[in-house]
C-alpha cells in the first residue's frame, strides 16, 4: 500500500524533484539530464525559448508524458524511477494517487465544451473524488465566485471569452484540491486585454493558499512580481536560475541576456 518514500535528508522538503531526467520525442531530446528541486510552497517560473522543454517539465509532472531516464518524484513518491538503463513508471494505481496531488491549467483552456461552467468544475469532484452532487455544485459555485464568474455558472464555454474560460479552467483545477498547480502558458492564447483578469486570479489563489506553483510564462513582469525563483531553460537544461530581481536585472550568461533582450523588446 505505502509507496516508497525517499529519506528526508536530500529530498524530504522537496515537493517536486527531477534528477538527471532525459526525455526524447523520437530522436529529438527535449530534456537532457534535467535537474530541478522545488520546495513546498515555492512559486517557480520556468522561462525559455520555445522547444526548450519547459512545457514538457509540467506535462511529465501531470503524467501526460513519459521519460526515458532519470528520477521524477512528487512529494517524496517516485513517479519515474531510474533502474538499470532506463526509467520505470510507477504503477497505474500509484500514478493515479500522485496525479490527484497535482493540477494543471492549459494554454488552450481545454474546458469541456458540452458542459456548463459549473458542471465543468463539479464533474471531476463527483466522478473522481465521489463527492455528493449538491456538495460538488456548491463548491463549484463558490469557486466561480472566487474567480468572479458566478453569473456565468450556466454558460457553456463557447459563450465565454477566452479570459473567462481560463478563469473557469483555474477554478476547475482548484476544485480537485491539488497541492501542486502547473500553469502552462495560461495567458498565451488570450487577447492582450484579457491577460490581466487571469493573472489577477492567479495572484489571488497564490495569496490564499499554500500551493506549490510551477508556471511557464512569457510575461516577465508577472514572473518578477509573482515568482520566488526564475529558471531559464534551453535545450532541455537549466542554464541559469535565481530570484527574480537578480535574474532579470543582472543575468549572468550571454544566452540569458540575449533571451531577455528579445522578450523584453517584444
Amino acid at each position: 500500500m505505502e509507496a516508497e518514500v525517499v529519506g528526508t535528508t536530500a529530498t524530504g522538503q522537496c515537493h517536486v524533484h527531477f534528477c538527471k531526467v532525459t526525455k526524447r520525442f523520437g530522436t529529438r531530446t527535449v530534456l537532457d539530464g534535467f535537474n530541478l528541486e522545488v520546495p513546498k510552497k515555492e512559486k517557480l517560473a520556468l522561462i525559455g525559448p520555445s522547444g526548450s522543454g519547459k512545457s514538457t517539465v509540467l506535462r511529465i509532472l501531470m503524467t501526460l508524458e513519459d521519460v526515458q531516464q532519470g528520477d521524477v518524484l512528487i512529494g517524496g513518491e517516485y513517479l519515474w524511477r531510474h533502474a538499470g538503463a532506463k526509467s520505470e513508471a510507477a504503477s497505474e494505481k500509484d500514478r493515479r494517487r500522485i496525479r490527484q496531488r497535482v493540477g494543471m491549467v492549459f494554454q488552450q483552456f481545454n474546458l469541456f465544451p458540452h458542459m456548463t461552467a459549473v458542471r465543468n468544475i463539479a464533474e471531476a469532484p463527483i466522478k473522481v473524488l465521489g463527492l455528493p452532487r449538491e456538495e460538488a455544485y456548491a463548491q463549484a459555485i463558490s469557486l466561480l465566485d472566487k474567480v468572479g464568474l458566478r453569473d456565468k455558472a450556466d454558460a457553456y464555454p463557447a459563450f465565454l471569452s477566452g479570459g473567462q474560460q481560463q478563469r473557469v479552467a483555474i477554478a476547475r483545477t482548484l476544485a480537485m484540491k491539488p497541492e501542486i498547480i502547473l500553469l502552462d502558458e495560461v495567458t498565451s492564447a488570450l487577447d492582450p486585454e484579457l491577460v490581466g483578469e487571469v493573472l489577477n486570479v492567479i495572484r489571488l489563489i497564490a495569496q490564499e493558499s499554500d500551493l506549490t506553483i510551477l508556471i511557464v510564462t512569457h510575461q516577465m513582469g508577472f514572473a518578477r512580481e509573482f515568482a520566488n525563483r526564475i529558471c531559464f531553460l534551453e535545450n532541455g537544461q537549466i542554464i541559469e536560475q535565481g530570484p527574480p530581481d537578480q535574474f532579470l536585472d543582472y543575468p549572468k550568461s550571454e544566452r540569458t541576456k540575449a533571451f531577455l533582450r528579445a522578450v523584453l523588446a517584444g
Partner: protein
Amino acid sequence: MNMIFNWKFAASILPALSQAGVVSVWITFVSFILALVIGLPLLLLRRSSIAPLAKTTALGVDFIRNTPLLVQLFFLFFVLPDIGIKLTPVATGIIAMSLHYGCYMSEVYRAGLEAVPKGQWDAATALGFSGVHAYRSVILPQAIPPIIPAAGNYLIHMFKDTPLLASISVVELMFVSAQIGSDHFQYLEPISICGLLFLAMSLAGAELVFCTEWAIGRKWRRKW
C-alpha cells in the same frame, strides 16, 4: 405495352406495395441498429494495442467495405449452404447489411473520436478521470454529435440498398413491385410507385436525421 399511367391499377396495387415498403423499412432499421452495435467492437479491435489483432481487423473491414454488397449477399445465401449453414432470406439480408454497414460505422466512429481535440484527453487525465470515465463524461459526448450526419447518411444508403435483397427473394418493396409488373405485364405503375415510395421514405429519413442532429448538442454549440 400501354405507356399511359393507369390510376385505377395503381390504386389497386398500392396496399401490397405499402406492405412491402414496411418490410423494407423494418429490415433497414434492424440492420442499422445492428450496424451501429457491430461498428463499436470493430473500432475497439482496430485501436487495440495488440498489433496482429488490430491489423487483422483492419484487413477484414477493408475487405468487406471494398466488395459489393450484392456479392456478399450471394455468398451468404448460395455458398454457405454448401457448408451446412442455411439461413432464411430475411436473416441473410439483415446479416449482410449489418456487417457491411457495421464496417462503415466503425470508420464513422473513428472519425468522430479523432475529431475530439487531444487537449480534452489531457484535461481529463489532469483531473484524474479513469479511462472509462473520460470516455463517458468527456470524449463520447463530444464524439457523437458530429457523427450523426454521417451515420444518418448511411441509414439512407442502407435503405436504398434494400432492393438488392430482392435478388435473394426477400419479399420487400422491389421484389413485390417487380412481381406485380411481371404478373400483369405492366411495369410503369409498380416501378414508379416503388421509386416514389423510396423517395418519400428517404426524405422522411433525412428529416429525422436532421432533427436528431439539431436536438443533440445544440445547446453547447455556438450558432453564428
